[in-house]
C-alpha cells in the first residue's frame, strides 16, 4: 500500500508527531524508516509524482512542468498522463498480472485503462474522463466523490476551504472503501492533495499559534491521521496469504515553507534586457517579442531563444554557452530588497536531465532559497511581489516512510523499491 500526502514536509510531520497531533501516523512511523527525501527539480507535483510513478527523471518521462511548449513554437500545451513516456509502477507490475488501485494520483489525467482501477488527480477537470473503468463513475458520484476542493473559492474563503477539505477527504474515504472491496488488488495507492491546497492558502495558520485558523489547520491533520489510521488498520487486519507481502510506503512529492516574496523570472529577464513582449500587458509567453534572447516558464524553467529552435529565435548556437553562464551568474547574484540571496543554484539542463526527451528540456532550471517562490508569470511590473498565497514548495524536505525499514534519499528511487515487492 502507498499513501501519498501531497506537499507534506518531513519537518512538519516530525513536529506534529512530537506534539501528539498525529498519534496514528506517529506509531506507524516508529515502525520502519521515516526520513527526509529530496524530489525533482522543478519541485512541483506533476513532475515529482511523474518521477515517483516512473522512477525516472524528466528527460526519460518527458514531463517538465504543468505547462510546456509545442516543439519549435511558443504554443503552450498542458502535458498530461498521455504524455508520460516511461512505464508507470502499475503498468510495470501489471506485466506480472498484478492489479492496482490508484486514487487521486496527480498527473494521471485523463484516465486510461489499467489492470485494476484508476481515479485521476490534479489537474483533472472532468470526472467523466478521470475514472477507469467508467462503470465506477456513477458510484463515485453517488458517494459524493470530488476530484479536488473548489480552489477558486476556497483560496479567498478559509471557512469554505476547511468545509471543502473535509468533504473531499470524506469522498476519498468512500472511494477507498468502494475500491478496496470491488477489486482484488495487489497494490493500493491513495494520494491526499488537500494538504497541498491548505498549505498554499494558509501556511501562516500552521506556523502562528495565535492565528485564527491555527486550530483548524491542526484539526485537518488530525482528521488526516484518523483517515490514515483507518486504512492502516484495515490493511493490517486484512487476510493475506503471506503477511510478508503487507508493505506500506508513505511519501510526499515536495515540502512546504512560508513565502517571503514571489520572484517573477520573466520580469527579471525583461529588466536585464533578455526578454521583450509584443504588447504592454502580455498574457502568455506566446506574446514574446522579436529581439528576445531568453524566456521563462513556470515555475523556474529558463529557455534560450535559439534561432534554430524558435520562430522568433535570436541566439546563435555559438553564443549558447556564454549566455547560459551569464544567466547563471546573474541569477545566482540576485538579491532581495533585504539583501538575501534569492537563488540557491542554477542548474544547466545536463546536470538534471538525460534521456530521449532531453531536447524538450529547459536550458536552465533555477532552485531558489526557501521563502523566494519563483514564478513564470509574464505580466508583472516588478521582479518581487506577493499575492494571497502563503506557502511555497521546497525541494529537499519531502518525506518517505517504509514499513520495511528500507531507505531512499530521492523520489526517483521509490518505484524500483516498490516494484521489488512484486
Amino acid at each position, binding site marked *: 500500500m502507498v499513501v501519498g500526502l501531497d506537499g507534506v514536509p518531513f519537518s512538519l510531520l516530525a513536529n506534529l508527531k512530537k506534539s501528539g497531533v498525529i498519534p496514528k501516523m506517529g506509531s506507524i512511523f516508529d515502525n520502519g524508516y521515516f526520513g527526509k527525501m529530496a524530489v525533482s527539480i522543478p519541485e512541483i507535483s506533476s513532475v515529482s509524482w511523474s518521477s515517483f510513478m516512473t522512477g525516472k527523471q524528466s528527460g526519460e518521462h518527458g514531463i517538465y512542468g504543468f505547462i510546456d511548449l509545442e*516543439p519549435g513554437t511558443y504554443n503552450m500545451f*498542458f502535458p498530461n498522463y498521455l504524455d508520460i513516456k516511461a512505464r508507470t509502477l502499475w503498468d510495470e507490475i501489471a506485466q506480472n498480472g498484478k492489479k492496482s488501485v490508484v486514487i487521486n494520483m496527480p498527473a494521471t489525467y485523463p484516465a486510461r485503462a489499467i489492470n485494476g482501477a484508476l481515479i485521476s488527480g490534479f489537474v483533472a477537470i472532468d470526472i467523466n474522463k478521470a475514472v477507469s473503468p467508467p462503470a465506477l463513475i456513477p458510484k463515485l458520484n453517488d458517494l459524493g466523490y470530488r476530484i479536488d476542493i473548489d480552489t477558486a473559492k476556497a483560496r479567498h474563503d478559509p471557512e469554505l476551504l476547511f468545509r471543502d477539505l473535509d468533504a473531499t477527504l470524506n469522498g476519498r474515504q468512500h472511494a477507498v472503501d468502494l475500491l478496496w472491496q470491488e477489486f482484488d488488488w495487489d497494490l493500493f495507492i491513495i494520494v491526499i492533495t488537500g494538504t497541498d*491546497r491548505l498549505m498554499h492558502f494558509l501556511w501562516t495558520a500552521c506556523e502562528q499559534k495565535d492565528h485564527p485558523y491555527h486550530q483548524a489547520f491542526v484539526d485537518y491533520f488530525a482528521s488526516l491521521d484518523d483517515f490514515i489510521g483507518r486504512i492502516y488498520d484495515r490493511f493490517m487486519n486484512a487476510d493475506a496469504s503471506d503477511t510478508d507481502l503487507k508493505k506500506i510506503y508513505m511519501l510526499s512529492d515536495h515540502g512546504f515553507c512560508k513565502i517571503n516574496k514571489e520572484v517573477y523570472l520573466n520580469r527579471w529577464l525583461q529588466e536585464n534586457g533578455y526578454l521583450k513582449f509584443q504588447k504592454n500587458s502580455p498574457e502568455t509567453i506566446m506574446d514574446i517579442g522579436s529581439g528576445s534572447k531568453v524566456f521563462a516558464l513556470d515555475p523556474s524553467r529558463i529557455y534560450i531563444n535559439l534561432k534554430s529552435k524558435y520562430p522568433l529565435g535570436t541566439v546563435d548556437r555559438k553564443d549558447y554557452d556564454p549566455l547560459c553562464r551569464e544567466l547563471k551568474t546573474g541569477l545566482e547574484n540576485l538579491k532581495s530588497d533585504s539583501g538575501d540571496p534569492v537563488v540557491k543554484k542554477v542548474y544547466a539542463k545536463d546536470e538534471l536531465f538525460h534521456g*530521449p526527451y*532531453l*531536447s524538450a528540456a529547459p536550458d536552465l532550471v533555477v532552485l531558489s532559497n526557501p521563502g523566494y517562490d519563483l*514564478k513564470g508569470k509574464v505580466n508583472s511590473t516588478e521582479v518581487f511581489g506577493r499575492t494571497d*498565497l502563503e506557502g511555497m514548495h521546497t525541494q529537499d524536505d519531502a518525506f518517505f516512510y517504509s514499513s520495511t525499514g528500507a531507505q531512499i534519499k530521492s523520489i526517483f528511487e521509490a518505484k524500483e523499491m516498490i516494484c521489488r515487492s512484486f
Partner: protein
Amino acid sequence: MEFDEIKRLTELSLTEKIEHAKSIITEGLERFSHDELYVAWTGGKDSTTMLWLYREACNAAGKPLSRTMFIDEGSVFEEIWELVEQVKNLWNVEVAVVKNTDVSAKAKKMGDLIRVADLNQRNRAEVANLEFNDEFFPFEPESFVGNHLMKTVAMNVFLEDHAVKALSTAIRWDEQQARVKEQTFSPRANPEHLRIHPILHFKERDIWDTIHAHKIPYCSLYSQGYRSLGAKGSTFKNSDIPAWEQDLENTPERAGRGQAKEQVMAKLRDLGYM
C-alpha cells in the same frame, strides 16, 4: 482573415457553407493541374467530407477526382484502414500511402528505440535540425522526433518527389484555438507549395450534418464515441455515445486527444501558476 469575415462564414447555412467550400475547391482545380494538386486524406470525418466535396466539384467541372495522399505514421487504427478501403472502392479514389519506411522498418513496435545513426541521410539531417543530439529516439508518432519524421518529413518528401504544388487539408477554425489565424489559401515554404483549406468555416456539427444528409461514409470509431481521431496509441473515446449525439457545442472535440485548456489554466492559476 478579419474576424467579421470569419464570423460571417461560420454562420452561413449548411447549404451556403457547402457552396462556399465547393467554390474554393473549384478555384484550386482551375489554378492547378491534376498532377499538381493532392488532397490530404486521413480517413477522419473532416477530410472524408472534404473528399466528398472534391468529388462533387470535380464532377461538376467534368474533371477526374483529385488524387489523395494518406500519411501512415505507423499507428493507424484498423477501423481507419477499413474506411479508406471502403471509400476508395466506392468513389474510385487514387490513394498514395505515404510512410517514412526508413524509420518504421527499424522498429518492431511502438516505443522501440531507434538509433539515429542507422537512419538515412535525409532523416539524420532532419533529426539534427531538431537539435536532437541523443543516440536513440523512441518510435512513437506523437513524440517530438517521431512526429516530425513520421508525419512532417514523410509528407515533405512526398511533396518534393511528386512536385506537388497544392495540398488541400481539412482543418477547421472551430477545431482548435490555434487555427483561428488560418487562411483559405496559405503559401508554405520548404517545400514551396500552397495549402488549400476548403472547410475552415465548417463547425463540427456541420460536418456531421453533411455526412448524414449526403450519406458520406465515416469511420466506425465515431459510432463508439470517438470525436477526433489521431494516432491509435494516443486517441481516446470522449464518451460511449456516437460522436454526433454528443454535446458538440459545449464539450471539447479534441478532449480525447488533449485537454480543455481553459479549465486547466484556471485550475493552475488558483495555485499560483501561469
